[in-house]
């Protein structure tokens, strides 16, 4: 079982994601953005960073990278796809996930340890998280304010697509609508979140709560049938 970690020019959490996946017990391979295949990986992670400098809007340029064709196919076949931070931004720009990540309402880059409430424990990305547990992880981004028009937010919540929310005591760090920190697609195989589980995967670094998410992904990989 293997996870592909996509490397865009400007990705900077790619090696961190590989390290996290290894801690979760699976193999990981870096896949350069010019490739048009995922090397037969069972799941794919779009890591954090500043793909193509994030100059226009976060993720706007990366969405057109050649590898995104393969990511889209993988996702459409039901393959597990996780976007972390910049990876989440790329997935929304590519319309693989709903919503927009706007500039933080603080107008600043925010590096903070936050706490995440897990709204769904029955997903491929969260099943290892014990019920009622909140997760401590860092955020590190300038554009992470989740936004959708009101009616769409209602629909998103009704369909159970909100997976993570910022909760007390630190609360909502970036002005996200309804404190949304992470969402998934309707089918439940594509998920994105702004906080960094891979940076919270060893207690020495302050928390290992994030490892629960990576372990969920790795365990789910074995179970998910990806259509040929």
């Amino acid at each position, binding site marked *: 079982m293997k996870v592909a970690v996509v490397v865009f020019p400007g990705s900077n959490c790619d090696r961190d994601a590989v390290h996290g996946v290894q801690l979760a017990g699976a193999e990981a391979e870096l896949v350069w953005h010019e490739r048009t295949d995922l090397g037969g990986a069972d799941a794919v992670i779009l890591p954090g960073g500043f793909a193509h400098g994030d100059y*226009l*809007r976060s993720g706007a340029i990366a969405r*057109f990278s050649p590898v995104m064709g393969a990511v889209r196919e993988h996702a459409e076949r039901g393959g597990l796809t996780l976007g972390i931070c910049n990876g989440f931004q790329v997935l929304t720009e590519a319309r693989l996930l709903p919503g*927009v990540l706007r*500039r933080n*309402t*603080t*107008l600043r880059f925010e590096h903070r340890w936050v706490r995440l409430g897990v709204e769904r424990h029955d997903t491929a990305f969260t099943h290892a998280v014990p019920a009622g547990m909140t997760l401590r992880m860092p955020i590190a981004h300038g554009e992470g304010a989740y936004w*959708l028009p009101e009616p769409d937010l209602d629909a998103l919540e009704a369909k159970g697509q909100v997976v993570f929310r910022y909760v007390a005591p630190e609360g909502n760090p970036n*002005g996200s609508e309804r404190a949304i920190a992470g969402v998934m697609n309707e089918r439940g195989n594509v998920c994105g979140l702004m906080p960094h589980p891979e940076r919270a995967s060893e207690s020495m670094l302050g928390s290992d709560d994030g490892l629960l998410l990576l372990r969920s992904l790795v365990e789910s990989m074995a179970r998910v049938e990806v259509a040929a």
Partner: protein
Amino acid sequence: MSSAYRFSVSIMPRDGILDPAGRAVEAALPELHADNVHAVRVGRRVELTVESDSAAGARATVDSLAADFLANPLIESWAIEEMAG
């Protein structure tokens, strides 16, 4: 036989969408003794040159570039202008 057309694309937050950057400018105005200024919105401007056989073709290129790439239609509106010269 193509010519060069230069355009500007002005991309602004859509009406009704919160614009924290605009608000921040407004908040700074009193210190600058410019409290007679309000309704500030902050957006982006992109200038580019298109090589095309026709003005219409050039315009079509910018139209699609703006809608698919330069702006995010969910939150931004945009206006395209041909620039002199």
